[in-house]
């Protein structure tokens, strides 16, 4: 009798258990999941993790995302995707599409927050050994965030087999962060030494946790001091990188200002002409980029290179036409020139509005322009900005060579320094004027191509840059592209360093006021022409 009772109990237990916890292939686990409570689910999820196949991983991921359902009637497990108001189902076992179904026919296998976190760790654990390196990095990151010490051996194991540099870096960081809380002195010291080298800001919270945990224990005194040093080092590193980042932003703003203003500097320097339509030349350059992208939609990646010569030609030609038609009649009357060119700028703006539209045009950024260059966890630089800096410097060098070495450049400088004497030496100053104006406008067009990547391409693009351009030219000194370069970079960097303290608008106002005061002190700019050249230019 006793025996029978025992057998019965045994069978009952067996029956009951096999229903839930003792399931071990995926389908069984899944059907068990349908009717288990949260603590049972945890065990089942662990089991799913132990299976280590692609399919189990997929199931785990869908569970974590909350797209794992089962059909109420047939108890079949499915992935469900919401389409309009119905759900599209995929059978898990066969991977076949079952069709659409109403929401009340299916039920989600739900998780609570704790379980979801647990699932993520399990997923990370299994994808740590995956073939895809991005998945391995992702897994390392998840484990780092989950901070689950029990995975430490797993990480060490993964490290042994790992060959990819990026993955190793991520794994080492995770290992260090997990070891910090492991309590093992040797490990702690090792990880602190490692972290001292990388100074990753993401580690701060773990280090703080570590300090909090062992603060009161005397045996960890040295380690606590070390950790505090580490925190200080990280903070000072962050400050340093912030400074570098600000400098970088400033330089990139400066490059933009330089590209935009250098054309103006040339025309102003040679002809003493203030060209208020300069901003519109920049705008036309930007629109040229847009048109090029419209004509060659399959060449988006190269569109900027195609647009550069076109923009130069288009705006240069417009510049020459303006010079021939209007400006040459106004030489020696700078104020009138200023007004006439302002009129031209209004006409060009309205022209663009009529041809395109008053709204901004979409200009695509090529793939190679986007993305970030990661130098340090606390410092990453946008490629776009880097290219702009490089571009402005190459324009600067090209112009320098043109003005210093070429015949045309020497003639330009001759006219700039002493017009009557240049004419006496047989230089056709009229022709030089036209060409210089064309050159200045053409460079504005090139600037437009660059600006199309960082600002909105619309009819008001030019207006928003023209005042900045003037400031740069006046600040740097007329007729000197070195002056323009340093003026642009100083203004750019100054502006960006003011911004964190004062906000963008106030920084701009302060810059403007600074310039107004600066011109009082040095009316001819930082690098004024000296000697006779300066006198005759009056």
């Amino acid at each position, binding site marked *: 009798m006793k025996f029978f009772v025992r057998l019965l109990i045994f069978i009952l237990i067996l029956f009951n258990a096999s229903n839930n916890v003792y399931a071990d292939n995926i389908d069984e686990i899944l059907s068990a999941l349908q009717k288990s409570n949260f603590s049972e689910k945890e065990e089942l999820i662990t089991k799913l993790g132990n299976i280590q196949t692609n399919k189990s991983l997929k199931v785990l991921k869908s569970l974590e995302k909350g797209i794992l359902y089962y059909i109420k009637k047939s108890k079949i497990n499915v992935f469900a995707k919401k389409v309009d108001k119905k759900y599209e189902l995929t059978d898990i076992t066969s991977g076949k599409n079952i069709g659409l179904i109403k929401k009340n026919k299916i039920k989600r296998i739900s998780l609570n927050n704790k379980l979801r976190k647990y699932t993520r760790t399990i997923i990370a654990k299994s994808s740590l050994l995956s073939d895809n390196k991005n998945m391995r990095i992702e897994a390392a990151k998840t484990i780092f965030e989950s901070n689950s010490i029990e995975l430490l051996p797993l990480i060490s194991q993964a490290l042994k087999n790992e060959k990819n540099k990026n993955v190793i870096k991520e794994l080492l960081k995770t290992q260090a962060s997990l070891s910090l809380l492991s309590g093992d002195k040797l490990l702690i010291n090792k990880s602190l030494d490692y972290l001292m080298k990388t100074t990753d800001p993401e580690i701060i919270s773990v280090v703080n946790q570590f300090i909090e945990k062992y603060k009161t224990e005397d045996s960890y005194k040295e380690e606590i001091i070390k950790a505090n040093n580490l925190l200080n080092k990280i903070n000072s590193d962050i400050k340093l990188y912030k400074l570098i980042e600000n400098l970088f932003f400033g330089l990139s703003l400066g490059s933009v200002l330089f590209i935009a203003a250098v054309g103006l500097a040339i025309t102003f320097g040679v002809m003493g002409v*203030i060209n208020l339509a300069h901003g519109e030349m920049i705008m036309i350059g930007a629109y040229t980029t847009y048109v090029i992208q419209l004509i060659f939609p399959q060449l988006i990646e190269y569109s900027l290179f195609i647009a550069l010569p076109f923009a130069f030609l288009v705006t240069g030609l417009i510049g020459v036409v303006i010079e021939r038609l209007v400006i040459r009649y*106004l030489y020696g009357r700078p104020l009138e020139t200023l007004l*006439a060119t302002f*009129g031209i700028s209004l*006409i060009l703006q*309205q022209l663009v509005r009529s041809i395109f539209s008053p709204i901004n045009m979409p200009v695509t950024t090529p793939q190679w322009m986007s993305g970030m260059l990661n130098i340090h966890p606390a410092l990453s630089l946008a490629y776009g900005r880097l290219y702009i800096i490089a571009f402005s410097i190459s324009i600067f060098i090209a112009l320098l060579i043109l003005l210093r070495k070429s015949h045309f450049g020497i003639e330009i400088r001759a006219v700039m320094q002493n017009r009557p004497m240049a004419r006496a030496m047989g230089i056709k100053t009229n022709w030089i004027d036209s060409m210089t104006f064309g050159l200045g406008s053409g460079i504005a067009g090139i600037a437009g191509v660059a600006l199309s990547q960082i600002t909105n391409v619309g009819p008001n693009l030019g207006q928003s840059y023209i005042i900045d351009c*003037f400031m740069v030219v006046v600040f740097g000194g007329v007729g000197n592209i070195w002056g323009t370069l340093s003026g642009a970079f100083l203004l750019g960097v100054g502006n960006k360093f003011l911004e964190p303290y004062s906000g963008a*608008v106030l920084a701009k*106002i302060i810059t403007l006021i600074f310039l107004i005061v600066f011109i009082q002190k040095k*009316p001819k700019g930082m690098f004024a022409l000296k000697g006779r050249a300066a006198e005759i230019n009056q």
Partner: protein
Amino acid sequence: MISNFIILNILRGDIRTKAFLLILLFIAIIVPLLNIYVPAGSFFHLTDYHISLFGKYLTYGLLALSLDLIWGYCGILSLGHGAFFALGGYCIGIHFMREIGPRGVYGDPILPDFMVFLNWSDLPLAWYGFDSFSYTLLMIIIVPGLLAFIFGWFAFKSRVNGVYFSIITQAMTYALMLAFFQNDFGFGGNNGLTDFKDVLGFSLQNHTTKIFLFLLSVLALAIGYLVSNSLVNSHSGVVLKGIRDQEDRLRFLGYRVENYKLCAFVVSAMLAGIAGALYVPQVGIINPGEFAPLKSIEVVVWVALGGRGTLFGAILGGVIVNLAKSYFTVNFPEIWLYFLGGLFVLVTLFLPNGLVGVIKKIFVFIKNKKEKSF
């Protein structure tokens, strides 16, 4: 005293001054008459809207006059005169805001609506005193004048000339625009100041107040003209013209060129401020857009079109361009910028002396013909 001055000036004045004042007098009489006595619906009837519109043109005329005083007679091209105009406007605007008192939407007895909206507890320091009308009148002259004085003091002392001066005035008005656009700056931010109720107890919506403001604009223009006229015809005026034509020579002759320039600049800024103060009650709003560099440059083209260096021409230009602007922006908004831009180019190329230059040429032509026929 002022009336004595005016009468003396009129009696002494040349024929052009008399003609101009007669035209103003004619306008001052005929416009209200057309509004009051011609029945509504008649072709000649002028609505209250028109009264305010004409008043607005007259204030633009005064603004053009003020610019002409320094550009036409002294050779200083200010691309920031709109700033003085707007400052005058803001002064009277603040007064009107304080005049609203508890009648605002939020009903706060002291704070204007936008301050209540921004959760401010105290009136900003700059707003104190503007509840008094006489203080406001004083400020309308002092604020633009003081800015012009400080700005001009530094600029002229360090001999900032020509295009450089134009550019820094443009930078000035641009910086002011950015500042006034800020909510924290305390002058209503983007929206500016509006919803004015009344002036000295008279409602601004009132028909009589509108006519009164119009007449005030006529008077201000007349006085502005006389002041400018006596200035440019005095000994100092001759010095100013000398500065315009050959600044260095005047300096060698021993004149303190910068003082003359500064004086003209300050007077001009004050006139612009008065124009702004008369402009605001007639359009009912003042916002930071008035500081936009474009507006200031537009004023320059009014003067250039009318005739730089003639007071009458500047006023004429101001009124004509704005008449055209009203017409075009209503009927052909697309064309307005072409028109304005074309005006800039054509006037500088073909009409260096503006419309007045053309009129003069016609007069000379007729005179010559007459002489020949004798």
